[in-house]
């Protein structure tokens, strides 16, 4: 039986790119240390920060909230979580339940946004009404709602559960399309634009997908382990994930090198053209007169529904006693 390279207890994981075996305790410490180092190296948080964590109900957001909760005293930030009930049949029912159990277990206040009630339609309905692919509508709605919630909660950062595999794959996909502006968004964090957009941070930047799963599993965190019914095997992301994993198998450490180097060169990629504007309907970040969500809802419902989402979140945050906020944060150190 393999033994932990640190303490000699039975091993539950082998980190090939470090040639180390780890027991449960040292494995959890290894992942949390990776997260802490990434947060410090890339200056993701400061003392007194309010961090809003986006929970999908899957393993990555479980690992993200688990690691952030373990580090919150040491790093001195406050956590709030958000889950969007997308209305994707039973998948969303199970995801919501997992997110609720997770937040409760870790003692983190959670805002659940039921899309049907707040926006007036679920993701499958929005896809049908707009004639757009479900994944495209879903991505746009999630970006809007999480940002709106972060602004309403006066959060200093919005934490997302993207792992190293996700970032490696999207980097390669964008490169194949020569969409260099898309690569510029794949760094460990983005900056806030006061009043209209809260900066996003990716604490799992250097954590592998398999490491994230094993962390959530070993820590006993609730998560759903199933694919969204709209995910297709032919999606390029899936194929690229296999390619990246074949490279990792042949050359251990490929993924961590890729994301670390990407973070170093992120500023060399061109930013999307056009100025940052304020949506005329909801006041949040937009590239034209209206933001993408208000453009879409104006077209299909005859009215922009961003303001309604913002108001709903504001009321919920008040009910939970999360706003108005008291303490002001120190700058990221």
């Amino acid at each position, binding site marked *: *039986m*393999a033994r932990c390279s640190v303490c000699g207890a039975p*091993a*539950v*994981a*082998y980190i*090939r790119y470090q040639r180390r*075996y780890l027991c449960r305790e040292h494995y959890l410490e290894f992942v949390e240390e990776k997260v802490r180092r990434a947060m410090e190296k890339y200056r993701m948080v400061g003392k007194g920060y309010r961090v809003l964590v986006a929970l*999908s109900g*899957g*393993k*990555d*957001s479980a690992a993200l909230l688990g690691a952030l909760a373990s580090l919150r005293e040491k790093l001195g930030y406050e956590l709030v979580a958000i889950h969007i009930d997308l209305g994707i049949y039973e998948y969303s029912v199970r995801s919501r339940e997992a997110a609720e159990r997770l937040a409760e277990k870790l003692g983190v206040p959670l805002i659940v946004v039921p899309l049907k009630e707040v926006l007036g339609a679920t993701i499958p309905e929005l896809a049908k009404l707009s004639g757009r692919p479900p*994944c495209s509508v*879903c*991505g746009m709605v*999630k*970006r809007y709602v999480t940002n709106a919630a972060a602004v309403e909660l006066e959060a200093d950062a919005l934490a*997302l*559960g*993207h792992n190293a*595999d*996700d*970032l490696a794959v*999207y980097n390669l996909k964008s490169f194949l399309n020569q969409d260099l502006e898309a690569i510029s968004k*794949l760094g460990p964090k983005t900056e806030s634009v006061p009043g209209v957009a809260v900066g996003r941070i990716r604490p799992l930047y250097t954590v*592998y*997908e*398999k490491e994230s*799963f*094993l962390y959530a*599993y*070993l820590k006993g965190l609730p998560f759903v*382990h*199933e*694919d*969204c019914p709209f995910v297709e095997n032919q999606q390029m*992301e*899936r194929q690229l*994930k*296999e390619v990246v*994993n*074949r490279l*990792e*198998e042949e050359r251990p450490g490929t993924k961590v090198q890729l994301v670390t180097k990407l973070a170093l060169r992120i500023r060399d990629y061109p930013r999307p053209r056009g100025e940052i504007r304020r949506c005329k309907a909801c006041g949040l970040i937009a590239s034209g007169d209206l933001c993408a969500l208000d453009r879409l809802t104006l077209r299909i419902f005859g009215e922009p529904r961003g303001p309604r989402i913002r108001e709903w979140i504001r009321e919920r945050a008040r009910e939970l006693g999360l706003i108005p906020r008291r303490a002001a944060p120190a700058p990221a150190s």
Partner: protein
Amino acid sequence: MASVTVRLVPEGEERSVEVGEKGVRVRDLVKMLGLNPESVVVLRDGAPLVDTDIVKPGERVDVVRVLSGGRVG
């Protein structure tokens, strides 16, 4: 011929894999299934196994495919 029983998760499909009398290393078992060790976690009685652990004839293991989440926004 000796064999081990593998349950693929989340698909739920069960397979019997022929192995030698001494059993098979986890890493080799995963490759015999045509899977990449980087994309699965192998569990025996719910406990994660490492690449060099041996699965003996007659034992059952779960091979869990690590699923990816949604899109990067």
